[in-house]
């Protein structure tokens, strides 16, 4: 009997011990929500800001960014940038020889240089830059206003491109790409990528060599309203245009010929006709001379000018719009056709022909040929090419070239 009692109590002890043993374990507490850990943008612990402030080869840029208060942001947490960074040599190449000179520049100028070098919020490696014609339009960190009807800032844009000739920001070659930093990527550029100072309209209208062009715009816009006016397009901040602007000489040459042959057809003797043509074409007011309205109709002038505005179809509507900004390095070396605003009216028009010649990474020569010849009657694209006498004039809303011949669409 006693034995049984002992057995029983042992049994209970084992039972209770077993219970205690299991109780000693714990219920798993509910796991907290696990934060998503976003991997660092790049495997580097140095921010773009620290790189710039610590590496003396960037001391010019550092001085500029410091002066404008933009350096801190490039090193801030939770940021992401693409910077087209000019090192000291690039500053020198752009005519700024020392930190002292940097410091002497107005803050606004420096803010432009620094701000225009920065694409905020995204890292664009060279491999991410589109290789399609002509380039990719991306916002910089310079804000010039607000998008109408939204709280979205309107920022100056910049135009990186990658082609067989290299990697560019606007027309400035990248000399060393893809320096991956903690908060983005740095591409070293050969020179300062200058921010556009003004609108196309102001730049063109203030250029004395483009006085005929300005007068032609006025004639072409006769009877037009709103953004159908070339003048409005040139003055509208959010357009993105490439303007091939013939200089005064080019217009004079064309106008002289046009007026002269018109006078000859009216049986005026050659000497008088020559004098009259010279006189009439010697001033841009020729476009507003009522006597010439029949031979220089608004439609004709508009057609000619449209042939000088590069265009591509709007991806949503399909209609041709002046919506590309083609820098000289975006043109091809073998002659290639590019569509113009004329295609908005004549869809099948082959456009203009352009040919860029590169010396190193830079374009040394750029020629444009129109379909028509002067005097008329030559085979298509057989006339003399127009040379770009001034290239890559970047404005807020486009780039313009000064060319030495008027291109004729027919």
């Amino acid at each position, binding site marked *: 009997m006693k034995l049984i009692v002992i057995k029983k109590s042992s049994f209970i002890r084992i*039972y209770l011990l077993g219970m205690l043993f299991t109780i000693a374990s714990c219920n798993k507490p509910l796991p907290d929500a696990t934060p998503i850990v976003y991997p660092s943008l790049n495997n580097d612990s140095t921010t773009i800001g620290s790189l710039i402030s610590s590496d003396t080869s960037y001391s010019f840029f550092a001085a500029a960014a410091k002066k404008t208060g933009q350096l801190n942001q490039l090193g801030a947490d939770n*940021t992401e940038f693409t910077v087209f960074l000019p090192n000291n040599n690039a500053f020198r190449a752009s005519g700024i020889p020392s930190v002292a000179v940097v410091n002497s520049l107005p803050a606004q100028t420096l803010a432009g240089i620094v701000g225009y070098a920065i694409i905020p919020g995204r890292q664009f490696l060279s491999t991410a830059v589109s290789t399609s014609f002509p380039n990719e339009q991306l916002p910089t960190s310079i804000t010039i206003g607000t998008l109408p009807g939204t709280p979205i800032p309107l920022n100056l844009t910049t135009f990186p491109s990658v082609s067989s000739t290299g990697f560019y920001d606007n027309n400035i070659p990248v000399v060393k790409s893809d320096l991956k930093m903690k908060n983005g990527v740095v591409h070293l550029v050969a020179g300062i990528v200058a921010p556009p100072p003004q609108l196309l309209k102001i730049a063109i209208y203030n250029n004395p060599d483009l006085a005929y062009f300005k007068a032609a715009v006025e004639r072409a816009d006769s009877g037009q309203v709103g953004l159908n006016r070339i003048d409005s397009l040139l003055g509208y901040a959010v357009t993105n245009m490439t303007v091939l602007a013939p200089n005064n000489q080019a217009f004079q040459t064309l106008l002289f010929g046009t007026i002269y042959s018109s006078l000859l057809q009216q049986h005026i003797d050659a000497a008088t006709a020559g004098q009259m043509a010279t006189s009439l074409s010697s001033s841009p007011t020729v476009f507003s001379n009522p006597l010439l309205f029949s031979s220089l109709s608004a439609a004709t002038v508009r057609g000619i000018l449209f042939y000088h505005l590069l265009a591509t179809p709007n991806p949503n509507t399909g209609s041709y719009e002046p919506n590309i900004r083609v820098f000289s390095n975006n043109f091809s070396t073998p002659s290639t056709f590019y569509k113009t605003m004329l295609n908005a009216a004549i869809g099948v028009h082959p456009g203009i022909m352009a040919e860029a010649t590169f010396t190193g990474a830079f374009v040394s020569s750029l020629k444009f040929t129109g379909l028509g010849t002067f005097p008329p009657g030559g085979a298509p694209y057989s006339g003399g090419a127009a040379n770009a006498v001034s290239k890559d004039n970047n404005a807020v809303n486009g780039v313009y070239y000064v060319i030495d011949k008027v291109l004729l669409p027919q």
Partner: protein
Amino acid sequence: MRNLLKFLTLFLLANIVSVTIFSQTKTIKGIVVSKATAEGVPAVSVTIKGSQEGTYTDDKGKFSLDFKGDFPLTLIVSSIGYQQQEIVVNKEEFITVTVQNISTLGQEVVVSATRTPSRILESPVTIERISTLNIRNTPAVSYYDMIGKLKGVDMVTASLTFASPSTRGFNGSGNLRLNQIVDGMDNQAPGLNFSVGNVIGLTGLDVASVELLPGASSALYGPGGMNGAIIINSKDPFKYQGLSFEEKTGVMNINNDTRNSSAYYDWSLRWAKKVSDKFAFKIGGELVQAKDWVANDYRDYDRLGTTGGIKNGTRETDPNYDGVNVYGDETTADIRSNVLNPLARLAPFYAPYINSLPASMPVSRTGYLEKDVIDPNTINFKLFGEASYKITENTSFNAEGYWGTGNTVYTGSDRYSLLNLKVGQYKAELVNTHWFLRAYTTQENAGDSYNATVTTRLVNEALKPSGGVDGWYAQYALAFLNAKLSGQTDIAAQNTARAVADIGRPAPSSAEFKQLFDQIRSVPISKGGGLFVDKTNLYSVEGQYDLSPKTSKVADVLVGADYKRYVLNSEGTLFADSTGKIPINEVGAYVQASRKIFNERLNLIASGRYDKNQNFDGRFTPRFSAIIKVGEDNNIRLSYQQAYRFGSTQQQWINLRVAGGTALIGGLQSFKDFYHFSDNPVYAIDNNLFSGSPQVQHFDKFKAESVNSFEAGYKGLLFNKRLLIDMYGYYGTYHNFIARTLVAQSVNGDKSVFTDTATVRANLSNPNLVTTYSVPTNVKGNVNTYGFGIGLNYSLPHNFLLGANVTSDHLDNVPEGFIAAFNAPKYRIGATFSNTGFGHQNRYGFNITYRWQDEVNYQGDFANGLVPAFQTLDAQVSYKFPQQKVLLKLGGTNILNQYYRDGFGNPAIGGLYYVSVGYNLF
């Protein structure tokens, strides 16, 4: 029907108006006292041997028995837990009977297994029982919670007062596959089709017994009992007399991250009076008041319709965060396609930049935590009353009513706050030794109940509409772009954008939020709010006759029938009842025959039941069982049974547009006709649709789901009746599972909205083009379940009892893509060590209950995910003042205060510690 009623009336009258033979009445008075305490023992049965006459002792142990007959006679004095006594009485005198405690192991009598009383050892199917003694000695705060500690039972706890038990799998918050029958009344809330835990039902003081039939049980209890039946019976006012009360005061929510420690109160009262030998009544009530447990799973949820799973993410790191218990953040939209891409078209100079952003940028609105949108006060108030009149010696008339109201939380497809839910159950019945006839009704009113998810989403819309040019998403996306243009990373810009779009969003504690929330939750769902109106009622008539006295030579035969009528009434907010109430009729009849053969060594029982619901084909379900007596108190049981359930009232008749736009509709053909499924086809929302080849979804006739179940078990007393062993094994096959399926229909009958893979997803969420329906349907393919359970109880000297059990449930053969929502752990372990009375005068008592269950891959309409293994330890110690009849108890559930959840997305349950004072508990 009318003829049947007429017949029944005549039949009853014939039985009641049986002539009683006049003879002189004599009276024996006496008292039954306990040997251990020397105090009177209440509710002891005192009967005259060889007659039907008898009575019960009152709350002081006294009895008075009138009889018509002659001395000498023999009194049988019996009560569970006491040795039965036979006393010879020679004259009218006051007698004192002293009774002695004995072990109750295996001695209990159960009714629900065969609808006739039988010893629990001889039950033909597995059965579990909770007695008044168990309730008195439990550490659980509610007797209903004790069900969860029974062998093989799983509980899903959606709220302090709303736990849903199930056996053998397929549980959820609100169990459609379990019958809960209280005093013969189906206890379900008719509009919901499940019992809201014990919010409406008996109070602990009034419970005489709880019996649980695990597994299939339709053969006796009708449709619904696929996974068990719980039969709860109240205390007879003739037997359990006097005033009883119990007061529990506790503390809970200790160390709860989400809620401060809070008080728990439970006041309960019962008064029963035997006015005469013919008439007795009882009344009582209970009030439970506490701050509820809080569902505080703030993990990020990847939602795909009604499936999904946990993913990494927080509100700060996932712009499309959808917290499990965070509401309002289910609203999601892609800011790329909805705002940024249109912006890129308007402002082409930003197009390349926008195009460099992720192709899809889903963003969710900012949600509110459950604790901010669900009333923390859980209240449960119950009232009951019964009057019982003995028309003849063998026939009584009972009228009974239960009414309850309360606040609780239910996890359906969303979390629902059942606020001021009111359900009343009222019954009138005639009960004879051999038959009964019962009529009852359940009157439901959902009160101010609302869908927390939908309401919070609508509050967000009211604060700031999601869509529109100045809507939340437009503001968000523009602020995002703005932040990007200032150089922020994507996630930083997302958070900046959220702060901008959320400007003006009221704090959850603000009066503004509360006022707006209260306003929206009071508007019916059908009118763009979160309130669901449900005043659905149930009416039932039921009768049973025991033919055994006439048929016992061949077999004991029992027959019965019932009629149920649901009257759906949601005023068009929930059901398709905007033009009037919708009735659903169900009739059923059953028969059971049993016969003992081979010298009573084999008892064969065959039961069958036929039910017809007006919206479903009729179903016959059989049950065959055998009890083989292998020795005294040792029985082997074998059974085969079928069970089934018709689609719930909601699965038949719901017609509800939920906030996401999906129309939840009933499975009946009339819905498919109304929505023109035949001439404007609906397409399955599946991978075929997303890959450009939509498949027309055809619906077969909506059928009842069913299960075939085989079971074998053994129950026996061994080692000098000290060890009770109960074991079982089962195998079940389920057919025609009822589940919901999502389909899409073009608003204009234009198939092309589904054929372009680029736009199909956008079209699906565009209500002008596409309507999506969630339609109940029968899933093709079968699933199998099997499992076993072993329970041991060992009776030690001095009334100490040790118990241990292990049970296991498995799901097998699940067809691909089938969401079974099995929700049962592979293993559970239970252990108890207790004593209902020891020491001087048996004054001391205690109970330690331990339970562990394995992890569960929980599947529910609300959310799916892993519920980790957990354990609970409940314990109480008690002290009795026998003379004053006062019981003091100090106890607690989950006393280790290790918070756990038993269902995914459900609240975390911690320790609840209480002291209780009870008077006259029996």
